[in-house]
């Protein structure tokens, strides 16, 4: 009689600065699948993890923003390639998190991969679409171009565990921002898998920092953090009181705020350019023209 093999369980960790630490607090929480069955313990990020992630994101920002747009596009495309390679794992994670059929989960994964490819292509085009020469009334060269705003806090959607996540992360980083992302609380596992993909896709450590945990708990720390330049509070969609409180906190250093919709949107729709431009600054440069 063959001895049954004991499964090696995975410990789900945070992703900060390119490493996979446990939560500084030592806390974790139980993750259940769509039918309520225990799946795993996920790290429960604390305010100090938020703090560390912001430090990592800030440190990574100049280098990432300083990459050529072509290079950032290549790296986003690389993420898509690696995701495609690990498609079955993502399908399983999404189905486990969101329920439904394997085919439905597969379509979510496909959309997520395609979304990354779509954004990857924007990397070296957005400045041409969002920037321009300005014909000022004088002997001056005058040019406006978009630049990344800096460190962006993202509260990822609660329902769409992978497509929604990719749809809020890709537009932030493709333009050169770095980000601290709080994943869906009840559906964090696709996010953790996504972090593992990021770690193996040439994305510099600290560009994307993924925290599993409670948006309502972590959001205020991100929103009030004075070294965060912008925040997307999509993850509290439908909770106007929390969204309002976050926006009020964000005003402390005049963060750019992408407000929460009344309900989670249909993530399969083609995104608007504002998903990227909301986290960009227009910089205008003047120079005299003379001999």
């Amino acid at each position, binding site marked *: 009689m063959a001895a049954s093999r004991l499964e090696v369980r995975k410990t789900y960790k945070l992703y900060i600065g390119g490493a996979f630490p446990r939560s500084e607090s030592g806390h974790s929480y139980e993750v259940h699948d769509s039918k309520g069955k225990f799946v795993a313990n996920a790290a429960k990020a604390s305010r100090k993890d938020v703090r560390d992630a912001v430090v990592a994101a800030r440190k990574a920002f100049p280098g990432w923003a300083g990459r050529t747009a072509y290079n950032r596009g290549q790296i986003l495309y690389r993420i898509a390639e690696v995701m495609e390679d690990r498609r079955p794992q993502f399908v399983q994670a999404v189905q486990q998190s969101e329920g439904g059929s394997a085919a439905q989960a597969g379509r979510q994964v496909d959309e997520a991969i395609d979304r990354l490819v779509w954004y990857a292509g924007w990397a070296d085009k957005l400045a041409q679409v969002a920037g321009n020469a300005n014909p000022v009334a*004088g*002997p*001056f060269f005058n040019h406006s171009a978009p630049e990344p705003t800096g460190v962006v806090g993202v509260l990822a959607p609660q329902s769409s565990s992978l497509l929604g996540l990719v749809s809020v992360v890709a537009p932030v980083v493709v333009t050169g921002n770095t980000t601290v992302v709080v994943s869906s609380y009840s559906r964090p596992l696709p996010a953790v898998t996504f972090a593992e993909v990021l770690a193996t896709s040439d994305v510099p450590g600290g560009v994307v920092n993924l925290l599993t945990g409670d948006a309502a708990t972590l959001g205020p720390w991100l929103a009030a953090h004075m070294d965060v330049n912008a925040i997307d509070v999509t993850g509290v969609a439908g909770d106007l009181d929390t969204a309002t409180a976050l926006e009020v906190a964000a005003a402390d250093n005049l963060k750019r705020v992408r407000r929460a919709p009344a309900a989670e949107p249909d993530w399969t729709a083609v995104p608007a350019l504002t998903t990227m431009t909301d986290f960009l600054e227009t910089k205008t440069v003047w120079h*005299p023209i*003379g*001999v």
Partner: protein
Amino acid sequence: MSATASTQSSEGLGAYADVTASEASLRRFLHGLPGVDQVGAEARAAALGTRSIKTTAKAYALDLAISMVDLTTLEGQDTPGKVRALANKALRPDPSDPSCPSAAAVCVYGDLVGDVKEIVGDRVNVAAVATAFPSGRAALDVKLADTRDAVEAGADEIDMVIDRGAFLAGHYLQVFEEIVAVKEACRRPDGSHAHLKVIFETGELQTYDNVRRASWLAMLAGSDFIKTSTGKVQPAATLPVTLVMLEAVRDFREATGVQIGVKPAGGIRTAKDAIKYLVMVNEITGPDWLTPDWFRFGASTLLNDLLMQRTKMATGRYSGPDYFTLD
């Protein structure tokens, strides 16, 4: 260039002896001068041009401008009769008003110096253009002979042109040595020398960077005045070109203790324009340059407009050209 050291007495200038020691060092020095941004320089000149000079300030400025005019005729058709008339005009610009100041000088070709001198004596200076004016294209000995002739004929001031071709070709030391040689040719037997004005023909130098370099080159070579133009090339004097030259003489005095004069010439036709130049002198170099010793206008028609404005100030009504002499 040892000639420099021997002709310059200021200790301040001595510090620059190395600069003119070789073509390479002179080039390094001139190209190491701060650049001039065209747009910024022109904007500054235009802004100074918006100063509003009224009443007592205007009366002062008009008389000052008249006293700074180098009344000029530089035509092939110039005759002794023509320049004598001009000399009389320079002496008494407004015969009906003895309070009207004389012009600073009469500026003519070298061969007519004697005719002017006969009229003005020592009361108004005589300036002669020299060194194959206006193109500057002749052998050095011809240019020097041209200069000596004018000095011998009694010229108080020599307005020489630089060799723009040599300057634009980057042969700065050649230009420098030519100025030094002409300065030497300005020397009189008694040891004094005719004042040397060096004309750049800024319209041909094209850039303000070149104007700044030419200014320093000429000042290091011993010019007494730097002058914009011959009047034969457009554009001639402009406010921004003069601004750059005023900045150069200001900086040169600060660096060496030596004061150099500035003469915009050509294209300044109205009293309004002349006052803009005076405002510029006042605010760029300061009042030390606000005398005919340090600032001149090379002009012909300007004088009558100054006189008309002067009369308007005195009488309160606008005058007309029929009331001023046409010489």
